[in-house]
């Protein structure tokens, strides 16, 4: 194990950080190179490390950028997926991939369908707002990550939950649709995977927002 103060310092900084792997690696690589330059110029690695700043001084600044990046990618996913699900299902619906059978669906199903449409649209609009905010220096990145995580998770739970309840409440028509429409099954599977991706990504955003780089959790 190396005892090079530059490597040791950069490793300690890296351990304190959470967030998108690619950006974290890029920032750490850049920092290591810069600190090596400083150590060579000073002729004393220990002095260069001292002037560079302690992990407690630096980590919050680095973590803010990682948190902003996590918020941005979460908001981007929400801004794309929720409107895509809304438009995709409306398109399928208008092309015959719909509940078939006798009579209109139960009132509960019609109401939940409306809730799902509104929830998807609201998540899409909020996500675009959060995406714009991540491109600004002012807003607190932790709040943005917390916002994107909360909005996305709530959206996934509302849309996923209403979808399950609607299909169960309208069971016979759902089974008939799956039997007669070849696109219905793959579309449902794809929608489920999309909501799963949202839950995983928003979970990451919430964990990064809660991370304290100085205290280590």
């Amino acid at each position, binding site marked *: 194990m190396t005892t090079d103060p530059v490597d040791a310092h950069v490793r300690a*900084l890296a351990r304190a950080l959470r967030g998108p792997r690619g950006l974290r690696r*890029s*920032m750490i*690589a*850049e*920092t290591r*190179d*810069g*600190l090596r*330059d*400083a150590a060579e*110029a000073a002729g004393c690695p220990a002095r260069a490390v001292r*002037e*560079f*700043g*302690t992990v407690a*001084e*630096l980590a919050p*600044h*680095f973590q*803010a*950028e990682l948190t*902003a*990046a996590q918020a941005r990618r979460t908001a981007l996913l929400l801004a794309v997926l929720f409107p895509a699900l809304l438009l995709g299902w409306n398109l399928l619906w208008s092309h015959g991939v719909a509940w078939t059978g006798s009579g209109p669906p139960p009132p509960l199903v019609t109401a939940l369908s409306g809730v799902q449409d509104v929830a998807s649209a609201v998540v899409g609009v909020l996500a675009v707002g959060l995406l714009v905010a*991540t*491109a*600004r*220096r002012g807003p607190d990145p932790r709040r943005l990550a917390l916002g994107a995580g909360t909005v996305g998770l709530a959206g996934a739970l509302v849309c996923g939950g209403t979808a399950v309840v609607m299909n169960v409440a309208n069971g016979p028509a759902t089974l008939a649709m799956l039997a007669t429409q070849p696109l219905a099954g793959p579309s449902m599977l794809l929608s489920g995977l999309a909501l799963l991706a949202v839950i995983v990504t928003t979970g990451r955003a919430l964990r990064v927002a809660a991370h304290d780089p100085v205290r280590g959790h």
Partner: protein
Amino acid sequence: MKPDAVRGHLDGLVLAVLESGPRHGYAVIEALHARSGGALDLPTGTVYPALRRLERAGWLSGAWSTVGGRERRTYTLTRAGRHALALQRTQWSEFRFVVDAVLGAT
């Protein structure tokens, strides 16, 4: 000059040293040190996240390249960055004028 006094102005100072041309992170630190005559007493490591923050805002563009056999990330001031720098200079002049007037500078 203590870190607390510099903190609110670091972004503007970084933009200013990049006005003359692209630089990598350590070159930015060197330029800040040289221009301030060594009076800027801030942890030099804070410059790296500041560069990323300015890149995120669209005021800098950053790209990896090989310089002197070493991989370095070089930053260039964008058009939006030049506008932001001009605005910061105007705001600083106004602020300095007001503080000078109140403090009674001669």
